[in-house]
């Protein structure tokens, strides 16, 4: 592996972590609307 590869691999890992965080946020943010809708059905 040449010297420039390692930082680029690290960047891919960091972008992966960012995408996982975005996925987690998006799912939970959208699902709060589910809680709002259940509020009136209780």
């Amino acid at each position: 592996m040449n010297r420039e590869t390692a930082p680029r691999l690290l960047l891919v890992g960091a972008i992966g972590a960012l995408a996982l965080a975005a996925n987690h946020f998006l799912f939970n943010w959208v699902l709060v609307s589910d809680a709002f809708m259940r509020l009136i059905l209780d």
Partner: protein
Amino acid sequence: MLSSLIFVAEDIFYGPAVMVLALVLVLIQLAVLGLALRGRKRGKPLSMKLHALAGAAIAALPVLIAVSVHTARATMLAALDVGAPSDKASALSRGISGQINGIAFAVFATGLALLLWVVGVAYTASAPGPDGRARSLPPAALVGVGLLPTALGALMWATSLVKSYAGTAGVDPSQKAAFFLAALDAARAEFARYARISTVAIPLFAVVAIVLIVMRDRGRAGPEPARPSSARRPLIASGAALLLAALIVHQARPFVAENTQPWPKIEGMWVEFPHAPPMPPLLGPDPIERAPVVQVEKNDLVLDGARGTPFESLEDKLITLKNNYRLLHPGGDFNGLALVVAGHDTPLPRLFSAARAIHRADYHQLLFAFTRPVKIIRPVLGTLNRSYTTGALAGVFYSDWLDKWGDPDDDAVPWKHADAVALRSQDFSDYTAFARRLVESRRQGKKVAVLVDRDAP
């Protein structure tokens, strides 16, 4: 298509602004794509900076729609606390439509703009460079593809709920809540499945990107050395990405808490009797049922919300309600039940006079209601002030156990056995004492009969 968009624009908060922004962004992406195509043909690829600018502009759309959805949520919360019932229902309905239409449109419009942007970037990137070799998109871009299932899941979640919510219009009112709840459960489970696919797909694509990078670098390491470049930029970018990821996870904490924190189990039903006097703080064991509501206050009599009902008309009005029920439910059994709401300051003789009028109207069951305020604290929804009602059921008969003609009362038979508890007005000092005895007896599983005098007060 246009008419659906107009409907969506009417339903979502700041609809016209959102539509104009979406249109402008799509036009910008189309223009950039056109420029990229022309640049490629002329052998002068478009500047990547222009693509980056066009891509960054797309972020404005989800941000604006997030504000719109937030406003829809705030409208719902505000409506829960105040307002006339009709205003409240309309604000809640607008809040629901605003959220689900907003989320559906956000995914659709952002996805369309991103798609056009990616095509433009790919066109420019794949143009042969000065060395005659075509570049390609960085493998790290693959990781973003992993988010597609969640985006698609959100779109399907919202569109299925838009349809279900519209579908509730044709459902029997008593079935509406169950119908929509089933739709919510199904949509939530489906969306969770899509989000799980993304959770697996993102690391998988990251691994693929890593393999591609390693393979390419090995290929380059051969005859000609790779172009020397600083390691600082990817390191700084990695740090920034990790920092941003931590910030996003931190910001998602209240949403996660809202979605996972169980609701407290509260005895009773979420029912309010508007402007009812404070009731004895008791928890009745019997479920609340639909029935005419006779609210006996110290200085007023309220029948089904109508204040100022004259005492002498109560019997006739209850007979009318009973007849109306039978007309509306031909063949259905009339349960002979009246819901009694009384304050702790309601004089007992007044309450028993109302019970006598109810009995004379051929109702032989009284469901005494006990409403108490309950505060529920939620991570996102905040403090919810609600009123929960429990009930205690009693039969109502003349104190001589005879019917109005002086014959043995057949309806009273189940209440006349030895274990049954008979409650008379003169045995109690006030309504609270009466209600406490009633609730205690019902909690012990005993039948309770309220015995009223035959002669009028």
